[in-house]
């Protein structure tokens, strides 16, 4: 990650609470935690070489689980968040089991199927998910007593900072992980699993761990969603949402931590520009196409196609020399 880029992001993040409205701070928090889900896809697909089109599922599991732990079991928030993320990691390991044999494009197929099945499946367990209409979480994530104020704005800022700290820690941990023994094993498997096995990499354990970590990151995103908005509902976890997360990861650049951050930044900028463009009237037939820019799914779909043609290594790969890949 470029130091200059990181410093710029830190400055922008620090300025937000001073200039933005309460809605703005809440939106900024959502954007920040979005990095976790994209990072999850990046770990599985970019580092592990396992295409996952269904990461929305793990966000969902993390959110539902956290809601249940904090409300149903009345656990303290920090524990509930950790357990929620762990539950998603467990779900990821379960999904990772078939990934031991199913590879490449077929794994993409299975994970897409999972993304499509998740909504009807979660309606079947209303005790945890609130069924069709979702359910509110009674426990609220409030600021501790040493926090200077407990107005709504102050609470929003506290949650915002909490999310930044958690996401920062997760980025740091993932950075260390991908540069550890497991990280090297992941990349070896991605590039050539037979060769990796010959060199003594335990394929089964490495693949399961990769999928678990990847799902755990997405689950952490889900847990923080509950922190920000005390409401869980299956409505948010559409197949399209999963695909947009995947697209963000690819657009940002797979196989670098920086790419996930870049993908989320790009999606934020494009989203704002799209909103502005859709708001502009009086362009006649062109206006209709401008309206489309407000549809994140449309922009991401087209963006995914364009990036694949122009910058196959994503935004993070622009300007870098192409590596030789087989």
């Amino acid at each position, binding site marked *: 990650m470029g130091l200059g880029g990181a410093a710029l992001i830190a400055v922008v993040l620090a300025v937000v609470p001073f200039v933005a409205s309460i809605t703005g701070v809440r939106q900024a928090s959502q954007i920040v935690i979005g990095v976790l889900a994209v990072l999850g896809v990046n770990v599985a697909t970019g580092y592990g070489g396992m295409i996952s089109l269904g990461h929305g599922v793990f966000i969902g599991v993390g959110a539902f689980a956290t809601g249940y732990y904090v409300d149903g079991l009345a656990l303290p928030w920090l524990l509930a968040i950790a357990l929620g993320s762990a539950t998603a990691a467990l779900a990821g390991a379960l999904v990772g089991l078939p990934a031991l044999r199913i590879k490449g494009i077929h794994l*993409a*197929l*299975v994970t897409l*199927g999972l993304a499509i099945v998740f909504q009807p*499946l979660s309606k079947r367990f209303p005790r945890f998910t609130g069924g069709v209409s979702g359910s509110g979480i009674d426990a609220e994530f409030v600021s501790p007593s040493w926090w200077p104020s407990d107005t709504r704005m102050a609470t929003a800022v506290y949650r915002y900072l909490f999310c930044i700290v958690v996401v920062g820690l997760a980025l740091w941990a993932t950075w260390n992980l991908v540069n550890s023994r497991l990280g090297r094993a992941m990349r070896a498997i991605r590039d050539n699993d037979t060769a990796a096995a010959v060199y003594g990499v335990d394929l089964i354990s490495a693949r399961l761990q990769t999928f678990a970590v990847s799902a755990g990151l997405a689950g952490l995103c889900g847990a923080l969603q509950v922190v920000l908005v005390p409401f869980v509902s299956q409505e948010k976890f559409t197949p399209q949402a999963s695909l947009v997360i*995947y697209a963000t990861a690819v657009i940002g650049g797979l196989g670098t931590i920086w790419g996930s951050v870049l993908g989320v930044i790009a999606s934020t900028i494009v989203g704002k520009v799209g909103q502005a463009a859709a708001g502009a009237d009086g362009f006649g037939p062109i206006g209709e196409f401008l309206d489309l820019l407000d549809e*994140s799914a449309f922009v991401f*779909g*087209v963006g995914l*196609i364009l990036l694949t043609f122009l910058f196959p290594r994503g935004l993070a790969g622009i300007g870098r020399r192409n590596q030789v890949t087989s």
Partner: protein
Amino acid sequence: MDLVLLLQRIFDALFNSAIYSSLALALVIIFRSTGLLNFAQGEMATFTAYIAFVLLSGPQPRLTGGGLAGLVPGVPFPIPLAIIGAVVCGMVGGAVTERALIRPLERAPDLALVNITIGVLLATNSLMGQWWGTGPRVFPAVFPSGAGQNFTILGARLRYSTIGVWAVLLAVLVLLILLLRQTRTGLAFRAVSISHANAELVGVRVGTTLMYGWALASGFGALAACLSANSVLLEPNMMLRVLVYAFAAATLGGLDSPKGALIGGLIIGLSQTLIPAYVPFIGFELSVLPALLAMVAILLVRPAGLYGTKRIERV
């Protein structure tokens, strides 16, 4: 067990089976020739169903939405003509997609092609939502499907519409077989399916042949979407679930076997109706879960499916 009820359920399932079989055929045609799973197949098909819808509704901007409103013909088309129009549009769309988006990436890794199909899926899906709204539209029945329009066999009703879709499917299949067996293009397509390099060596234009393959597949998809739009209601996400069933059917039959797609569609269609009926937990809402589990199980235990070619990997 109530045998009449069982027979009735089987008859009901046959309609969906035909739809899954034809979408599975579309997936198989593309997989067989390019080794690519077209995740956008369902959305491309839904788009053509909307085209049929626009052709059917004539000059009613309110119904057709903003997009394409200017292109709407002055008179509403009769249903068969509208469907033929949609199939032709689908075939052109498929060919253009292959030429513009897939062929330039011929030598790119699998991941790039997955990205392209996902991109097409997302863009088409939201385009439809923007142009025609996300709410469901009533698509007219292609075959008479009202009350009483059925044969009664052993006390169970077999609808005319079920017979109709199967008649269309089988007729198109006969055409497909004739095309593959009796024409030069068909021969070229079979050669390309076996080996791109060898086909090229004997002078087959691989790219053009693949383009025909995509056109054919998208035609099948369009037909599936138009025939099912009445029963599942026309909406942008219409084919997402159908796609899971179709993929399950194609996997079960073997991803590179047209015969397998047909039989796989039959089995998946039957199990979609019969499993929820006899396993209360699954229920109608979750009927897509057994299809997904079946797909995973087949990929784990017997990746070649029932009729597919066994893949041998050189290490």
